[in-house]
């Protein structure tokens, strides 16, 4: 095996394979969403392509443009033993279905005293940098992470996407799985067919000794680029890919920062009130006296996602921002 060239797949393909696997493993897995069946094109980004041909339109259902109804149908079927995977085409559209997600999916297990549960998965995609403007590219994970009872997951590469989406579908809690539009067609090493990534477990894709870069989703790629550049100057960055944003893997994060004694949290979402605030705060609460400097945060600016490329670029988190923050902390 080792001398064979590793096969590569795209992020979107990995998601498709994870759903196909879940549908083959469990006939209670059903898919709902706008345009997701093959007759309608297999999803606007083709992530569900081929699945309705294989599993039928009873299990792979194109829906009206009705996000409340989509998530509601997922909640109801999940209450009686199904594992629905609802595609909310773009993350901004989740706002239309927040009542179903926040007041119902997240709370019914608790409010029923554990008599029912809602094992649904919401798949959604988003991401700025391609001129989609203010209502098609927001990162809203902090909204969701603040809701007790919801799990929030984001993959940074195709193999993790495959393993994490499968785990999300098979998890007995409601999970929002965030995909990234600009990297849908980016390739990475293909996972083994039985590859699984457990929820709640971060990975350490790069080990280092001087500072921990704690990130997820597209922040991982940007952090790798910065780490590579700084390595040339003898600065050793450790990268933590959270993979599950909520609840996050505190053990791995704290262990890393206890070693490096410095940290920056990096995310694409708006910095103010972002997930970085919670993670940074937890580190300060546990490791304050060990830190070389206060934990840094990198995120996008306090504004809606701008349209014009010049403003969008200025607004968006960048490798330069990460580098500057690392130098400030280690300076």
């Amino acid at each position, binding site marked *: 095996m080792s001398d064979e060239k590793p096969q590569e797949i795209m992020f979107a393909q990995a998601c498709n394979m994870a759903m196909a696997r879940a549908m083959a493993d469990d006939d209670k897995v059903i898919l709902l969403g706008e345009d997701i069946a093959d007759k309608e094109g297999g999803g606007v980004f083709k992530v569900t392509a081929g699945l309705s041909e294989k599993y039928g339109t009873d299990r792979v259902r194109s829906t009206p443009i009705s996000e409340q109804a989509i998530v509601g149908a997922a909640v109801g079927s999940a209450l009686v033993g199904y594992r629905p995977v609802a595609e909310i085409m773009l993350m901004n559209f989740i706002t239309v279905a927040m009542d179903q997600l926040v*007041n119902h999916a997240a709370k019914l*297990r608790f409010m029923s005293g554990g008599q029912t*549960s809602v094992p649904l998965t919401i798949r959604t995609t988003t991401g700025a940098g391609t001129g989609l403007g203010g209502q098609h590219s927001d990162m809203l994970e902090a909204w969701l992470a603040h809701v007790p009872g919801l799990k929030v997951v984001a993959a940074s590469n195709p193999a993790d996407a495959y393993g994490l989406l499968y785990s999300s579908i098979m998890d007995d809690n409601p999970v929002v799985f965030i995909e990234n539009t600009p990297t849908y067609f980016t390739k990475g090493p293909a996972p083994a067919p039985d590859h699984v990534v457990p929820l709640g477990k971060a990975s350490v894709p790069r080990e280092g000794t001087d500072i921990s870069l704690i990130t997820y989703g597209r922040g991982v790629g940007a952090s790798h680029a910065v780490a590579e550049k700084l390595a040339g100057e003898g600065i050793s960055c450790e990268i933590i890919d959270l993979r599950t944003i909520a609840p996050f893997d505190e053990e791995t994060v704290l262990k890393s920062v206890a070693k490096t004694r410095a940290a920056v949290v990096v995310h694409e979402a708006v910095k103010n009130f972002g997930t970085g605030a919670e993670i940074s705060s937890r580190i300060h609460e546990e490791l304050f006296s060990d830190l070389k400097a206060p934990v840094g945060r990198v995120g996008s600016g306090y504004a809606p996602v701008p349209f014009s490329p010049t403003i969008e670029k200025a607004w968006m988190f960048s490798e330069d921002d990460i580098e500057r923050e690392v130098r400030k902390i280690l300076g």
Partner: protein
Amino acid sequence: MSNTQMADKDVLLDIFTRADLIMQSDRRFRKMIGAGQLQIVYYPVRGQEVVSAAMMAAINQDDYLVTIYRGLHDQLAKGIPSKDLWAEFAGKVTGTCKGKGGPMHITHPETGVMVTTGIVGSGIPIANGLGLASQLEKDNKVTVCCFGDGASNIGAFHEGLNMAQIWKLPVIFLCQNNHYGEHTHMRDTTGSKTIAQRGEGLGMRSVRVNGNDASEMYAAAKEAVDHARAGNGPTLIEAMTFRFHGHLLGDTSHYIPKEEMEQAREDDPMPILRQQLLDLQVSEADIAAIEAKNTATIDEAAQFALDSDYPPGDEYRIDVLDVEIAA
């Protein structure tokens, strides 16, 4: 109403038994809250007993129900044991949901009560999911989804009914039209003359009935259930009714004109149904026995609720996720 045949005596007795339990339970809740024995927010159901009792008499225990914060009548009619329900209303550990749901969030899967929501209109999309599961499972179950007239003005109603219709889901949407959304009359909030018209506009089989007439309500319910079980899809039933004690307990109904309230009291479904039974040669003694049995059930349930313990505080860490949250 006048065109509907009188339901069988046994059916009417069944409806009366459920409706009387609801009426007496409502009365007892109001009394105990008024006396300070219970400290809860309560949405009275007096006046809407027959709608629920007739609907639930037309379905089975394993059929699903989704209802709302004004739900005591639906929950009792569907068959949740009074002790479990009372204890949950009181927030006790012996309640249906260990005291973690409360009156606005009752769940009891054993009797098919899957969701009680405190958010107007939100049960409708969820009922579709239950219906979808039944359709895929081919289990021949129906889902009854209860809501009020106010819910037809929220988006979930339109999204949900549309989806149910295009997928021909086995769901009965039971709009209990008591004329008032909180304190505002329907004529001041609703552009269409009836709720049934809105169902028709969404392509759905829709009927408007006198929900306070047991026979007419039961006939409409039965027809909708048969239609759904035959795979022909959903029905919207707009059941006309009234609530005598306002939006929530303490509401004096000052916004309801005196004549309207007087007319509603004349049309009170409970004495009418009782008289219908007498007319069908059910003896006063037999009716009194049903009422006494319901009273005893409530006596026992209320005492059980008062005597039960509150859940331990640490209970908040359980049932958030499928694993306990660390302290």
